């Protein structure tokens, strides 16, 4: 029995130590010695070319800052539903908080509506920061630029307003690990004023299923 335990511990240590992922094969025609570990499927990739995602750590618990109004929360939950219907499982759990959140690393996922925004980034409607270790996402935070942008829920009151649900769909896509894409997708980089783009497309659904089966 003792020797089995020693072997078990030994194997456990070996498994714990052997964590370097395997790269993809080289390509003689392109004179490449190695390639990405995985196909990207529209996801951000780490240094080994692995897709970063929450893996099985679902649903993702996200705190909502103290400045979240009912309108914002309704749009957010609608946006979350779009992704959950696309993949057929619960992906997000939201919890209101009295705190003011930032993107500083605090090991809590959060969404905040910022009334103060840096001049350098004034053209950005929102920024989603992701942190990961190996290929496992460990923290995600969304900041919405409410200083330089106005948002609408159902009907805009002016021509330079952004559709809130569409924005949340896009930013929640980033939280899931998706990067910007070209073509027909809710993850295309630019969300024009007034445009409603809230339904994940076939491409988006396929990408999501690549990682979250």
């Amino acid at each position, binding site marked *: 029995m003792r020797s089995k335990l020693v072997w078990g*511990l030994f194997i*456990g240590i070996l498994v714990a130590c052997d964590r370097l992922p395997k*790269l993809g094969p080289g390509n*003689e025609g392109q004179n490449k*010695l190695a390639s990405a570990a995985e196909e990207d499927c529209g996801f951000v990739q780490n*240094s080994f070319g692995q897709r970063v995602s929450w893996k099985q750590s679902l649903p993702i618990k996200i705190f909502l800052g103290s400045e979240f109004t009912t309108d914002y929360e309704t749009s957010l939950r609608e946006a979350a539903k779009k992704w959950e219907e696309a993949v057929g499982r619960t992906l997000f759990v939201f919890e209101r908080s009295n705190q003011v959140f930032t993107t500083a690393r605090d090991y809590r996922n959060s969404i905040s509506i910022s009334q103060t925004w840096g001049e350098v980034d004034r053209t950005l409607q929102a920024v989603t920061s992701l942190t990961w270790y190996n290929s496992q996402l460990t923290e995600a935070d969304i900041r919405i630029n409410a200083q330089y942008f106005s948002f609408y829920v159902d009907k805009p009151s002016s021509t330079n307003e952004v559709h809130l649900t569409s924005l949340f769909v896009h930013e929640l896509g980033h939280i899931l690990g998706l990067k910007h894409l070209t073509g027909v997708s809710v993850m295309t980089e630019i969300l024009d004023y007034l445009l409603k783009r809230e339904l994940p497309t076939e491409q988006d659904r396929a990408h999501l299923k690549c990682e979250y089966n």
Partner: protein
Amino acid sequence: MKKFKHFKLIVLALVLSGGLYYSDLLFLQKRQVASLEGTIRSAVSGDRNFDLTELSSKDFMRGFKVAMVSGLQVVRDGHEVGLTWGQFLVRNQSGAKVYVCEKYPHLEMTLKAEGVAYSGNIPTIVLRGPCLSSDDGQRTRPLMIPLRGLHRLLRENPKNIIKMGDRGDTYSIEAQSLYDEWPQYWTVVGASFSNDIETLGLDGFELISLLDQVLTLDFAEPQ
């Protein structure tokens, strides 16, 4: 009672294995960076003479990458950090053997922030400068990156031109997708020598395959 004792030992074995794994999760990055810098410094010594002039074109395409990596050194000088790459011999247009910097006078390096992305984009730095030989010709001279105030500098002006050395050589540092937080760890994802016609380079995956680990540097801003 005996079964309970064995159960405790099994649990202890699992906890120890898990503890090893998760303690690495917390400390691996710092240790990995420190040990890699040390490994590179100690592995490269003595004369290197990578004469690739007689290789077939197929062997050359692998050989130059090995030569580049074999000369890797992390150089730290005060609040500046840089990398040297291995030089090797090639033939110039006249057929004479020359060091690679003579035929390919431009050096470019790309680094990406490790473990962080903003709106799906990983912060990226590209360094472009002259390919200059070290005094002994074995390596390239490093393009030194000044860490003090670098974040603010690149946020205000994503493309900065920096003067290097005493010959007035200049090189540029260009940044993309930088935001409020400065990423501490940066991974080299590409390096190349080039001239107006040709480029010899390797990407991050090839670097990992040759080094057997990620080439990540600590760019913590000095206080």
